[in-house]
């Protein structure tokens, strides 16, 4: 008889070891473990263990399928499952909630061989969408909140993004690949060339959105995150522009952020 801990460690190893599913446990099973499982009815010990091994992979692969639907669309069912099983073997879940099973998937994809070169960026975008989905809430700032602000207060105004906002730095135009992968007609997904992009991922209400940032937003947004005053944001927008023109450009950007619900309400 094995002590409880030894039994659990051996069973856990057996369930997660196989790379595919049905049959994996039967091939790799630990004799001491097999001897502890009753052989009763139509199923032998190895087959009974195999039910759990198959459930383990099926359940966690399903979680990854839900979290990375565009990666799945590009790879197809079979290749995605194989990749997901390799990932789970390398990075078993270490969090009690399945919500976090995919947290190292993009990193794993980046190191895997023979995959489309943009796939890791796409996985990073999809994971950012998962993170933003249940990120902390914040009341969004509305245009009406700013309308009564005296002009003299604007230069020192410190705006801040909502917590449910992440930036994803990519080597590929991954927002276009994401959109194309929704309907992966042959030749569409994966088309394009490397192009450094910054994708903003945010939640408005309960809906998660993302958008590629333009040059101006890429320059200004980091300052917003750092809590710099509005005058500094305008100064950062001045590259090659007159101050008044830069203020207009930054003003347009501010309007877009307000429409997207990207800014948090100012402290009272």
């Amino acid at each position, binding site marked *: *008889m*094995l*002590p*409880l*801990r030894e*039994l*659990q*460690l051996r*069973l*856990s190893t057996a*369930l*997660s070891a196989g790379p595919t599913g049905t049959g994996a446990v039967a091939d790799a099973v630990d004799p001491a473990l097999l*001897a*502890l*499982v*009753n052989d*009763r*009815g*139509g*199923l032998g*010990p190895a*087959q*009974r*263990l195999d*039910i*759990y091994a198959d*459930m*383990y992979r099926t*359940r*966690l692969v399903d979680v990854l399928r839900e979290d990375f639907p565009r990666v799945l669309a590009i790879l197809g069912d079979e290749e995605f499952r194989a990749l997901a099983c390799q990932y789970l073997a390398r990075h*078993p*879940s*270490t*969090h*009690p*909630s*399945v*919500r976090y*099973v995919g947290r190292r998937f993009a990193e794993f994809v980046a190191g895997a061989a023979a995959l489309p070169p943009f796939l890791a960026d796409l996985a990073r975008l999809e994971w950012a969408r998962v993170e933003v*989905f*249940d*990120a*902390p*809430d914040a009341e969004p700032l509305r245009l009406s909140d700013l309308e009564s602000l005296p002009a003299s207060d604007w230069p020192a105004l410190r705006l801040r993004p909502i*917590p*449910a906002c992440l930036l994803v730095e990519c080597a590929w135009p991954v927002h276009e690949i994401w959109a194309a992968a929704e309907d992966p007609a042959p030749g569409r997904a994966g088309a394009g060339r490397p192009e450094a992009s910054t994708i903003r991922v945010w*939640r408005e209400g*309960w809906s998660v959105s993302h958008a590629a940032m333009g040059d101006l937003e890429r320059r200004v947004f980091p300052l917003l995150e750092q809590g710099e005053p509005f005058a500094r944001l305008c100064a950062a927008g001045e590259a090659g522009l007159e101050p008044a023109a830069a203020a207009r450009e930054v003003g347009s950007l501010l309007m877009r952020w307000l429409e997207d619900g990207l800014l948090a309400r100012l402290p009272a």
Partner: protein
Amino acid sequence: MAIAVPFLGHGVGLRPKHFPQLWDGTARVDWFEAISENYMVAGGRPRAALERARSMAPLVLHGVSLSIGSTDPLDEAYLRALGDLVARMEPAWVSDHLCWSGVGGHYAHDLLPLPYTEEALAHVVRRVVAVQERLGRQIIIENVSSYLTYTHSTLAEWEFLGAVAERADCGLLLDVNNVYVSATNHGFSADAYLAGLPPDRVGQIHLAGHTDMGTYLFDTHDAPVIEPVWDLYRQALRRFGRVSTLVEWDDHIPELDVVCAEAERARAVEAEVLEGANAAPA
């Protein structure tokens, strides 16, 4: 001693698919059962939905990752998150499963069966007591469906479950479908199972559908409850009396009216058994 939980009626599992129909207020829901881990998040729709559901009907939290039988230390971060959720939502009760879900720092996210030995019993009792002290309330432990049993078990599953309840002073969530599935898979008597449980410990009942895989029954929660499980529910009601009941759906989840109809059927079966009302609709 007994489990001190209220009778809430016949509940419905809180599932995102049903949010639009739930929020329009046309469905009759006695109470909601929410999967605890799905709401241990910082914000967004899950938390808002849980708060909204709680404002509509009593709420019960049902966990899947407490891993009460694991030989790893209790997960402090998990207990803290569960405690925070309980403090915020004030559920009528908190439940999880008699199983282990991982070991060695890894989670299998499954409800893995324990050997029913004195060693495992002492271990589980210690941990249930610790969790109850941590949460400041009794918890309710559910029997799981299983596909294997261990040669070195010295207790029947129902003896083990009853002993956990008595020694740790916790409640039991009797999953009638799990009793049926495991009885079929392992060749024990479902009647003996029900007869062997302490009646004053059963605080909740689960019903569910399963799938016949040919050589075994698989607990899939993706189909209506079958007639033999309804019959076993009748037996459970005769033994345990009126107990809050919920029909679980976790896969191929149908429209809310179908889920509510199953809850209504459970209500009718209860009336039939306990009040001698006419036979419940099929």
